[in-house]
């Protein structure tokens, strides 16, 4: 690691001996509530006079609305776009040149552009009755040609999702560094690779309870959301209201993953409705709505060529990537973030001299696509790592060896890669070496030589990625989307009895931040973790924040909590010095007390004195008291780069197409880990989702744009028996730029598994001439590929 005085992180751990500070494997405080079923989710919010909403949704992917017929007896309980006077459509514009703007009406006007699009809102005392009303509404729709294939949508003459665009491309981007220099490489491999459209499927779906308080003149929206402050800004824009007249509360949230990161048309609709009808209203997303009508993710297509020297050294990558962005641009991430990110992150953790990537964000008659845990990285890692295995095969090398030859080396850190990503620190080759050793690659090769008694085929696969996290202003201002993160703020307040309250604007929906942020505070102030309360998810009670996304919360909110606690500690120290009748320069704050040569005074006593016995304070005490708000940004905001090497061993039954994961190893470096137990949990959860991408999850569509997996019997998610007991190994290379040297790790677990598993399956089936380049790898795809390879062999013979 290069030493750089300016970029030095503050790595001091005075509280480590208490076992509660940074680095402690503390069980999560919130689990006592959550695991006993005592959490309070939007569905648990009970308000007097609450009524339920069910929506009439478009049954067609693309149609002109000729009429909406509401039975006489239900007029007054059904609302359409004609009722929503003055409500603006959702607009998420990117500042990238050429971006085409979509307007998403909160209730459809003129035409519908996806199955499940909201057409009318039905209100009743219960959801069942509201659904009865919705079933009675008749839509007169004129069917239009629907586009569900993003590659066809790019072709001239395709039907148009947004007619006035003239084509279906939200945004095209081009990035090139000297690709001509790679063209004479002796190894040239070209493939088409694709990842299926998925539904994020958190345990809790979206949900909204809206109410209006005339006394405060304030709309309160309870919403299962990751980014309540951003939701408020978006609502204010659509409703034409001052932000101060809106309060967004996100109570306990059962998983976000990006699904809960957008402004929903439903949120706008219910906000309007409660103000119109004068009582609280509720909508809870059901599982069919989630699968059919809500945000989707992951659908990528790559035409990719990798150039390499005969020793496996990468010479360059040339790629055309297409992302199916769906019908509308979602607020605030926009329709282009996914594809445009592909171009910037496709080179992965590797060094190469030449690169070209062209991307298309394509509009189709499908649900909007949203960034899902790992965002574009899961698709990118899948494409790149499958290609590297092909390069290895061409070069006659072990797949691990090709990676080791091309990974950025530790002595090159910090490293600016070919797309100008600034890798902050780490030893990528070491992670790969450890993964190869742990999976015991030599033993697997020997086992493959012997064959299996049960006739299955064994395969081993690896993948590696690095993940930019907590990237801030300098990165996001370039995208020009409605949300650009700046300084993250936290408020810290000592209570009269010496407890600590922390208010932060990010949210916790499974990340364990009620524990980890308390550990950060303990690290600085020495207040017992049990006495630290974390207040999250309420715009009225927390500082503004873009919220929880991009693996940013530990870096950003953790840094802000540290900064606020440091300032609070300083104020406590100065009061403590007065109480000890010491010169402030002669006392220190340590283990929750202010200590001087003559004795010590606890933070609890200091707090008690400030609030309850001000007569004991000296007249010249700092009037700021024991409540501070501080902001934080890393010394460089281009992001932390955590990384991990994954290795999988699978057994493939080539007759049934069944894949069993026999062993799984993850070697991960998230910088300094605030709570390794929580990090393990994050990785296990991400792995489960990655296995879903690899083997199970897919939302197929028919030719008319109808989504076909409408229940969880058709949309398969991995369960406990599908997720192996992975073996984890942590490396801990601090980031030089962040508080404590932490890096964001929230998404990584979901990035690498599809690539590692696909590589393992292909390794197992390569002797049969089989190559699978599409996720998920289903039994049918495996068997079809095996049969095709057999047929090809027969016709060649």
């Amino acid at each position, binding site marked *: 690691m290069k030493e750089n005085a300016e970029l030095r992180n503050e790595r001091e751990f005075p509280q480590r001996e208490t076992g509660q500070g940074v680095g402690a494997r503390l069980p999560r405080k919130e689990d006592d509530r959550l695991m006993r079923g005592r959490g309070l989710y939007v569905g648990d919010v009970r308000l007097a006079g609450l009524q339920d909403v069910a929506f009439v949704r478009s049954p067609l992917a693309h149609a002109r609305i000729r009429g909406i017929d509401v039975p006489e007896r239900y007029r007054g309980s059904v609302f359409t776009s004609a009722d929503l006077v003055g409500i603006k459509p959702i607009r998420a514009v990117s500042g990238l040149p050429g971006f085409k703007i979509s307007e998403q009406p909160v209730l459809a006007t003129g035409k519908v552009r996806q199955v499940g699009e909201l057409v009318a809102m039905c209100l009743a005392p*219960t959801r069942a009755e509201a659904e009865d009303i919705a079933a009675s509404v008749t839509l007169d729709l004129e069917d239009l040609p629907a586009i569900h294939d993003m590659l066809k949508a790019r072709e001239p003459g395709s039907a148009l999702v947004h007619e006035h665009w003239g084509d279906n491309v939200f945004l095209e981007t081009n990035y090139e560094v000297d690709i001509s220099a790679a063209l004479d490489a002796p190894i040239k491999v070209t493939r088409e690779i694709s990842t299926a459209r998925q539904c994020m499927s958190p345990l809790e779906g979206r949900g909204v309870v809206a109410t209006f308080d005339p006394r405060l003149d304030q709309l309160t929206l309870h919403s299962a959301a990751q980014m309540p402050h951003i939701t408020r800004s978006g609502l204010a824009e659509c409703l034409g209201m001052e932000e101060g007249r809106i309060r967004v509360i996100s109570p306990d949230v059962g998983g976000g993953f990006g699904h809960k990161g957008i402004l929903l048309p439903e949120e706008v609709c219910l906000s309007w409705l409660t103000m119109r009808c004068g009582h609280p209203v509720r909508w809870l997303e059901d599982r069919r709505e989630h699968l059919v009508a809500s945000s989707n993710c992951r659908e990528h297509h790559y035409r990719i060529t990798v150039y390499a020297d005969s020793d496996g050294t990468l010479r360059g990558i040339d790629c055309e990537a297409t992302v199916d962005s769906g019908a509308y641009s979602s607020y605030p991430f926009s329709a282009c973030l996914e594809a445009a990110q592909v171009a910037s992150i496709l080179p992965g953790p590797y060094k190469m001299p030449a690169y070209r990537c062209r991307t298309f964000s394509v509009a189709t008659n499908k649900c909007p696509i949203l960034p899902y845990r790992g965002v574009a990285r899961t698709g990118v890692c899948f494409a790149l790592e499958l290609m590297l295995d092909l390069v290895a095969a061409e070069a006659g090398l072990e797949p691990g060896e090709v990676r080791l030859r091309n990974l950025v080396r530790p002595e090159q850190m910090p490293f600016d890669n070919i797309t100008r990503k600034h890798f902050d620190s780490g030893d990528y080759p070491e992670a790969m070496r450890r993964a190869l050793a742990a999976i015991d690659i030599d033993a697997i090769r020997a086992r493959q030589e012997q064959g299996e008694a049960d006739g299955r085929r064994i395969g081993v696969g690896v993948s590696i990625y690095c993940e930019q996290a907590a990237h801030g202003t300098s990165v996001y201002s370039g995208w020009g989307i409605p949300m650009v993160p700046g300084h993250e703020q936290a408020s810290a307040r000592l209570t009269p009895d010496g407890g600590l309250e922390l208010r932060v604007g990010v949210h916790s929906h499974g990340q364990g931040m009620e524990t980890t942020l308390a550990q950060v505070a303990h690290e600085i102030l020495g207040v017992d973790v049990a006495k630290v309360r974390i207040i999250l998810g309420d715009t009225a009670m927390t500082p503004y924040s873009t919220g929880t996304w991009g693996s940013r919360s530990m870096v950003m909110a953790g840094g802000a909590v540290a900064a606020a606690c440091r300032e609070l500690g300083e104020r406590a120290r100065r009061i403590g010095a007065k109480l000890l009748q010491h010169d402030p320069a002669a006392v220190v704050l340590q283990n929750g007390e202010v200590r001087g040569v003559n004795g010590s005074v606890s933070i609890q006593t200091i707090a008690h004195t400030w609030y309850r016995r001000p007569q004991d304070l000296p007249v010249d005490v700092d009037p700021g008291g024991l409540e501070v708000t501080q902001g934080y940004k890393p010394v460089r905001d281009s992001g932390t780069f955590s990384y991990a090497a994954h290795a999988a061993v699978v057994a493939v039954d080539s*007759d049934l197409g069944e894949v069993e994961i026999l062993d799984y190893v993850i070697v991960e470096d998230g910088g300094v880990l605030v709570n390794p137990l929580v990090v393990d949990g994050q990785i296990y959860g991400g792995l489960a989702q990655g296995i879903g991408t690899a083997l199970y999850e897919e939302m197929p569509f028919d030719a008319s744009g109808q989504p076909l997996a409408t229940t969880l019997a058709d949309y398969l998610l991995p369960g406990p028996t599908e997720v192996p007991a992975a073996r984890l190994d942590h490396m801990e290379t601090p980031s030089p730029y962040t508080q404590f040297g932490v890096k964001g790790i929230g998404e990584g677990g979901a990035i690498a598994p599809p690539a590692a598993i696909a590589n393992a399956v292909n390794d197992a089936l390569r002797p049969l001439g089989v190559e699978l380049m599409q996720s998920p790898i289903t039994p049918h795809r495996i*068997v079809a590929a095996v049969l095709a390879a057999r047929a090809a062999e027969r016709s060649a013979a």
Partner: protein
Amino acid sequence: MKPAPFAYERPRDLDAALSMLAGSNGSAKIIAGGQSLGPMLNLRLVQPELIVDISGLAELKRAEVSGGELVLGALVTHADIEDGRTADVTRGAMRAVAANIAYRAVRNRGTIGGSLSHADPAADWISALAALGARVTLRSLAGARTLAIEAFIVGALESALHAGEIVEAVHVPARTASAHWGYAKSCRKTGEFAHAIGAVLVDPAAASARIVIGAIDTTPIVVTDAAELFGGRIAADYKQRFDARVADVLLAKAGIDDAAQRHIHISVLKRAVLEAAA
């Protein structure tokens, strides 16, 4: 996802249940364990005017061996069979099938009569019981009739039940000492509906075999005289004589155009044959 309004009755005896069904003009649905009907109601895929909850009918919970065959009341649960609370004449065959139906929570509530009535092509009992040569008794106010399982299942989600009729009991013949049993299925994940099922009852001593290829999106393929699948005769070497090409033709005739699907079905059937011969 809430059901459309319906009336609900929970009769105390079978005659009362049959009267309710008879009086409903075909607009009633019977619920027992509710493991399939519950979701279908919530998705509004079915919108009956009346739900007749038969879970209180003690006469449908009986399980007894009578005249050399096992008679299972329609309300016997998969878990009852899995746990051995019912008698068994199949030498463990039914118990093993029951133990792998969906998840334990489904097995606790789901009933054998409900599973048959629902007639899901991917369900286990319609294939396993057809291979075992079981029959089903249907009762209405007009009386009772008995059908072979393969005659009872007439299509995907379609049985021979008439309006006003209910599955009363399942009759399972005893598996002879010389009869071999094999049952295999392939599922995307644990507890998921199978996408291929093979069930085999082979008695080399009697030179007879029943073979079922199930989970094919329509009624299972039931071959009651399966000699053609074994080169024309059933003998001790039937494992070696299994002819995949005949199975392939059967599947193609059943309308399965996709070669990979047929390959998976044949592979599963082969596993069942191997298990029987093991």
